[in-house]
């Protein structure tokens, strides 16, 4: 069954308890990790201007991969290819192969809305819906038909809020507006919303840029917990954050993927001089 297929395919309501199980396994070494997202020769044009040149990368499951690089290097463009957000831009053309869990997400029978459920995204500025905390988390499972009964929905909401390390702070005011939370809490609410629909992959575009150091630390701790069960890709301007949270790092520059490797190696002995110059602050 092609789980990315559009409305026409066989897709009955799924068992709400089939959320990705919380298996406290170790992350394991990168070499024996499964590839969750595979890209080969991805080229992206905005009209005449080419933004990405032949990007190929394997992104492992149950790990955090960081995309780093100077402004305009293409890292966010590439991130947005993985959940087909670039479809919303009129003159944007994506070529090449992109697979999530071995399935081509740009195939003609694939529904981009379903892709965006399975490949969730957290943005720089927290964007909770103008609804209650409960409704923010319940909305996704409900409209995607993931639950049958309200009891199941309550369960998903609690599980997701617990996973986002937010439950204890909001359990007594689930019907308060999501927008009334602090910035850090809003971001964790958005993360809860994302995990509520059992994504395969979680994309994060500078998730902590708008947060203070304490909120940032809480989100980083959350990322550390989530990576035991999800494939996470994070775009960040902070070298130190990439070093702290990721296991694999990819350096982009002028639309090309210059170097990838285990984070420890990238930050102690990078192979390319451009990578070295960027991470040591010798650019420009």
């Amino acid at each position: 069954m092609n789980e990315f297929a559009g409305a026409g395919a066989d897709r009955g309501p799924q068992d709400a308890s089939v959320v990705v199980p919380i298996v406290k396994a170790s992350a394991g070494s990168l070499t024996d990790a499964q590839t969750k997202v595979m890209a080969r020769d991805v080229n992206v044009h905005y009209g005449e201007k080419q933004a990405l040149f032949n990007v190929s990368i394997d992104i492992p499951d149950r790990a955090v991969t960081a995309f780093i690089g100077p402004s305009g290097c293409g890292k966010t463009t590439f991130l947005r290819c993985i959940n087909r957000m670039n479809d919303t831009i009129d003159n944007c053309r994506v070529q090449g192969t992109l697979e999530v869990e071995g399935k081509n997400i740009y195939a003609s029978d694939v529904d981009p809305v379903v892709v965006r459920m399975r490949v969730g995204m957290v943005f720089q500025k927290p964007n909770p819906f103008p609804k209650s905390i409960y409704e923010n988390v319940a909305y996704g499972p409900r409209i995607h038909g993931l639950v049958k009964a309200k009891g199941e929905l309550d369960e998903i909401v609690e599980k997701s809020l617990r996973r986002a390390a937010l439950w204890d702070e909001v359990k007594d005011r689930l019907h308060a507006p999501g927008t009334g939370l602090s910035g850090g809490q809003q971001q964790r609410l958005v993360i809860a919303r994302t995990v509520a629909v059992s994504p395969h992959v979680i994309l994060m575009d500078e998730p902590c840029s708008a947060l203070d150091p304490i909120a940032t630390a809480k989100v980083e701790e959350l990322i550390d917990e989530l990576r035991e069960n999800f494939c996470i890709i994070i775009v960040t301007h902070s070298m130190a954050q990439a070093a702290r949270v990721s296991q694999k790092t990819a350096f982009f520059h002028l639309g090309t993927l210059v170097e990838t490797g285990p984070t420890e190696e990238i930050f102690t002995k990078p192979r390319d001089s451009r990578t070295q110059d960027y991470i040591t602050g010798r650019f420009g």
Partner: protein
Amino acid sequence: MTDHTVKAFTEELDALTHEVARMGGLAETAVTESIQAISRRDTTLAQSVIERDAKIDAAQHDVEKRAIRLFALRQPFASDLRVVLTGWRIASELERVGDLAKNIAKRALILNQSEPIQLTKSVERMGRIAATQLKQVLDAYSNRDVRAAVGVWFHDEDVDAHYNSLFRELLTYMMEDPRTIGACAHLLFVAKNIERIGDHSTNIAEYIHYLVTGEEIATERPRADAETTDT
């Protein structure tokens, strides 16, 4: 390599490596002069070496403080990380070299109070080899020259081989004339200290390799010293 966009970072890294190089110069002088104090039976020189060791200790503390500051305030990565880390470790090696030179000078004071022994010539030769090695490895550090560093790393056997033959010579000497046992015992310690100085030069060579390549020297260090117990 280009400067950091934030120039103060480059300045702080340079200041650290300059301090390590300066410390290297002090250690080199201490080793050379402590050996001279033995061979020329120069008590004044020996006392001077002993007093000046405090400067080497102070330099090591300075390097350490700079390194901690760089780690805390700049969070260095990649090559910068290796510069700070190896600068700190090399300073520790040089501080030990200074101590060993001071100990040699202390033994010189004692030896100068008894009759001269022929074997000090052999000790002097060994000392000069160790001093040359130290100079070569410090030059390699200044020039970030991996090949020169690896050269020193391979030739640690020379100092070790000298130590072994000197050990046997001294034993023979002591057996032939028991009145020389006191002085020979001190010379044994001096020889051991020189052999240790050679070991520190080898360690510094390993750090230079890591500094430049980011990799550790892969094989086992050549060891030729038969008597490896600590004295």
